[in-house]
């Protein structure tokens, strides 16, 4: 068939319909063949390729009686996850509780560069550090308010944000009662602790757990009966942050004081 009389495209002179159908057809057939031939488990040999999220349920344990407030976890988290300056996926709070009056709570730069001695003249009788991260709640206020489904819980119990799908509206930042989320100033999307999902699904511990010099932070797997964290949860007295909110946090605390919110 001749080309359209109005067509000025010189390329249309060269390809006949028959030729076009032949080349396109073989290209499509070739592409289909490649898809069919590729084995399904082509990622074998890659670290963590055999990970099955139905076999795990991650929990986190913080021993506030062990934390020395060195801030190594905050620095490791920043280095591992490229957390922007001024934002924190994990941070350390210091509580100084005097015999009478208001408790003094501070977290200078999230505790990233440690803490300086307190200079107040309060008669402090009780003082301690409380490391905090996303609680990876089972009843998540943050994922429930997301209008586009960019925030979700994985089957192994981790709350994640889809960085490609998030529109950065900030509802989840407001909804989290623990202040665990922030808007990433580079990507303009919601960001938070991923429980180092790229690490725990490849057999590593989270960066903060890995780096903690005193074992104040531990990662546990509820589905592993021999997990030491399961043993602690079963036999020791543990608490979660703000249990009255019924968010069912999966970050448990040993030695948590009533002043901590």
């Amino acid at each position, binding site marked *: 068939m001749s080309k359209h009389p109005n067509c000025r495209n010189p390329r249309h002179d060269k390809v006949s319909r028959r030729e076009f159908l032949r080349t396109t057809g073989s290209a499509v057939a070739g592409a289909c063949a490649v898809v069919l031939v590729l084995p399904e488990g082509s990622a074998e040999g890659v670290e963590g390729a055999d990970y099955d999220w139905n076999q795990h349920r991650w929990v986190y344990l913080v021993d506030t009686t062990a934390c020395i*407030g060195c801030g190594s976890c905050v620095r*490791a988290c920043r280095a591992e996850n490229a957390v922007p300056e001024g934002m924190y996926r994990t941070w350390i709070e210091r509580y100084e509780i005097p015999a009478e009056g208001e408790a003094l709570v501070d977290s200078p730069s999230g505790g990233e560069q440690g803490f300086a001695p307190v200079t107040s003249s309060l008669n402090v009788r009780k003082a301690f550090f409380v490391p905090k991260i996303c609680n990876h709640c089972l009843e998540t206020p943050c994922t429930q308010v997301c209008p586009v*489904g960019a925030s979700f819980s994985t089957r192994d119990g981790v709350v994640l944000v889809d960085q490609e*799908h998030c529109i950065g509206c900030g509802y989840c930042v407001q909804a989290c009662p623990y202040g665990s989320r922030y808007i990433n100033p580079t990507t303009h999307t919601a960001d938070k602790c991923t429980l180092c999902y790229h690490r725990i699904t490849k057999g590593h511990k989270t960066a903060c757990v890995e780096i903690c010099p005193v074992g104040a932070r531990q990662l546990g797997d509820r589905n592993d009966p021999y997990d030491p964290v399961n043993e602690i949860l079963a036999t020791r007295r543990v608490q979660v942050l703000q249990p009255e909110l019924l968010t069912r946090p999966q970050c448990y605390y040993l030695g948590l004081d009533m002043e901590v919110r």
Partner: protein
Amino acid sequence: MNPESPLIHTKHVFRAALLLLAVIVTLLLGRSLFVPDTWGEYGWYRGAAVDDHRARQVRHLGDDPCAMCHDAESADHSAGVHAQIRCELCHGPVVLHADLEEGEKTGDMPIRRSRELCELCHRELDARPAGFPQIDVREHLSDQGADLTPDACFECHDPHSPY
């Protein structure tokens, strides 16, 4: 056509059905355009987002890679009281320093050889657990008759295996 015949409305019904079909086709087309491929694979979210998270690079790799080149420091470290302290706590993530697959050094480790580094853990603070070794560095240095220099601690203490 006989105005009594039930077929008199065929045309209208046909037009309405055609319109409905057009709306459904437009909706389906729009959906396939705007809804991501893996949406709903596991729940009301993009299934590929899970893989996006998993695909990220692991940057802290523990003490084993360090021992591959730094035998002496590694032996010192694992025999001392800092044995349970990860190399990367003071030195930063190993990926800044070496390509482990190629076995090549790729950059200098940012070593923070300063008093402040020691003080992060050992400065005397009332919020630290009582049994943890802590010190008032100024007091300690004046007791020892030493100057308050930036790297004063390292004059006497080897950070890999301190006493």
